[in-house]
């Protein structure tokens, strides 16, 4: 059982901010994908990769929606989200226009913690945003060489470009990358079963395997895996990590009510020392040790 994860000094207090945030931009991409930019200064300043915000979608809906933070600008105070319309709540959110306000509550949750020199970031579908957020944070770290592999079965919400950053082990023709990451000097490659040009035709995990196989044993010892995406993908990623004996952190999703640890509505079964513990995705996660959840 998850005990409250606060300490006697009450350091958990005042770490999440609620603000009526102006929508600065709201762009639509194919496959009902949307990129939302809101002005939420405190959230932007405190956001760490893997965290999310809890957004109101409409006055008529009693519950908010948890959405991963894709980018945050501490200087300019904006926060970007990428989401796909998946139900009534996200459909209502998608109708909100620039200039309108929504309530943004964040940042929430335990972020990723990267210790390795060669982090492998894998994002599938709406699981891409936390990986982009993590990549942006790693960009500022010297000596760390991340690789980002993104997968999607609907058109990517950006125009892929041939990458100038060379990578070991890539099959012929797998050259497409995400321009934003490329600008940051971070290597990326794309995977899809849809046969998009420049993309690997197959699963993200198979592409990752090509890369891992091309590494020396020493190099491989420096790899840690970070992933977010649909459950079948996460399972495959964790199995891959097991096969190569790599540490793996995954970011999970669940329906949420409070998003502050109050309702225990968002739990996931986590293997613990004594059997299985039901932990709250909102505050005990959303980032968990992959080997403990799959």
């Amino acid at each position, binding site marked *: *059982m998850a005990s409250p994860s606060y300490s006697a000094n009450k350091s958990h207090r005042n770490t999440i*901010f*609620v603000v009526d945030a102006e929508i600065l931009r709201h762009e639509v991409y194919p496959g009902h994908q949307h990129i939302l930019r809101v002005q939420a200064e405190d959230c932007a300043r405190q956001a760490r990769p893997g965290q999310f915000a809890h957004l109101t979608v409409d006055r008529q809906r*009693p519950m908010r929606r948890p959405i991963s933070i894709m980018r945050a600008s501490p200087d300019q105070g904006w926060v970007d989200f990428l989401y796909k319309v998946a139900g009534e709540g996200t459909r209502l959110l998608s109708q909100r226009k620039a200039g309108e306000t929504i309530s943004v509550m964040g940042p929430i949750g335990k972020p990723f913690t990267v210790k390795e020199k060669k982090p492998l970031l894998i994002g599938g579908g709406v699981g891409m945003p936390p990986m982009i957020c993590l990549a942006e944070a790693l960009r500022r770290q010297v000596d760390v060489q991340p690789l980002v592999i993104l997968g999607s079965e609907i058109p990517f919400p950006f125009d892929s470009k041939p990458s100038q950053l060379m990578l070991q082990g890539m099959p012929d023709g797998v050259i497409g990358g995400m321009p934003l990451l490329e600008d940051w000097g971070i290597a990326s490659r794309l995977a899809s079963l849809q046969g998009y040009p420049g993309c690997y035709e197959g699963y993200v995990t198979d592409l990752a395997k090509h890369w891992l196989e091309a590494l020396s044993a020493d190099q491989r010892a420096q790899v840690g895996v970070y992933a977010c995406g649909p459950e079948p993908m996460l399972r495959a990623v964790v199995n891959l990590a097991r096969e190569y004996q790599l540490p793996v952190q995954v970011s999970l999703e669940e329906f949420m009510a*409070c998003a*502050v640890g109050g309702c*225990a509505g968002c739990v996931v079964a986590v293997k613990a020392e004594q059997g299985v513990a039901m932990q709250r995705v909102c505050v005990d996660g959303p980032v968990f040790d992959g080997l403990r959840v799959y």
Partner: protein
Amino acid sequence: MSQPDPRLAQTFCGMSFASPLILLSGCVGFGEEYTRIEGFSNRDCGAICLKGTTAAPRSGNPPHRIYETSSGMLNAIGLQNPGVDHVIQNILPELDFNETRFIANVSGSTLEEYREVTRKFNDSPIDAIEVNISCPNVKAGGVTFGNDPDMSAKVVEACREVTAKPLIIKLSPNQTDIAGNAAGCIEAGADAFAVINTLMGMAIDIENRRPYIGNNQSGLSGPAIKPIALLKCHQVYQVSKAHDIPIIGQGGITNAVDAIEFLLAGASAVGIGTALFYDPLVLPKINQGILDYMHRHKIQCITELTGTLQLNSADSVLTGTGCSC
């Protein structure tokens, strides 16, 4: 540290409540979770009901545990809690009793368990004990006790034997005669009532032909249940007022108007649960809204509002015997 306006304060079963707003069990963990939010303060409520607690730890129901519905939500948490000993040893010492009153919420599968958990809380710094005989999400005990008037009274009696702290009985709306049940509970030693717990419900994913909720059935809360809750609250007030037994009215309250409706219907205090999920900073807004109303109606103290509802002449509907068709 700002406190709610003194006109909102009252003494409830001997406890001083700074505000009529009570944070509801199961929505606010063990009292510290919402303080993560900047601008949220435990001082803005009269009391906090902690998560339902049982004798042994419970890991709760399988996911999904919650689902949004029209103007409400379903939940089937299954009373996940670390057990009464852990709560008393590790959680209560962390709470700041200067900020508000803390009320334990007791659950059990047997009479003996209710008694045991209550007895343990009696020997703790907790301010009061709320007995949950209305949880719809567990197989034994809970609502199966709460829907049976004899069992309800037995649970109250068992708990009363082992505590002198205020004993608040949380009634189920999933029963035919809530007022009759309340009368039995009063005789068995209840000090106050919480009215109502969630209503049993279900939602189905038609693509998979399965209920969304792992536990299949679940409890409905939020604005959708408010009219039902209000009537139940008023029905219980009909029997409790003669005994000076106060009510914490609850079920779908989201703003000051809702809160005032419950006070007029007979509640002395009102619960806020699901509304926090939408607006975690709602407490000071409701406090202010109630004050504005009191000012407009020249009311000096919140207690003057309780039960001041003026009924229309056909009052038979309210005892549950009349026909409204």
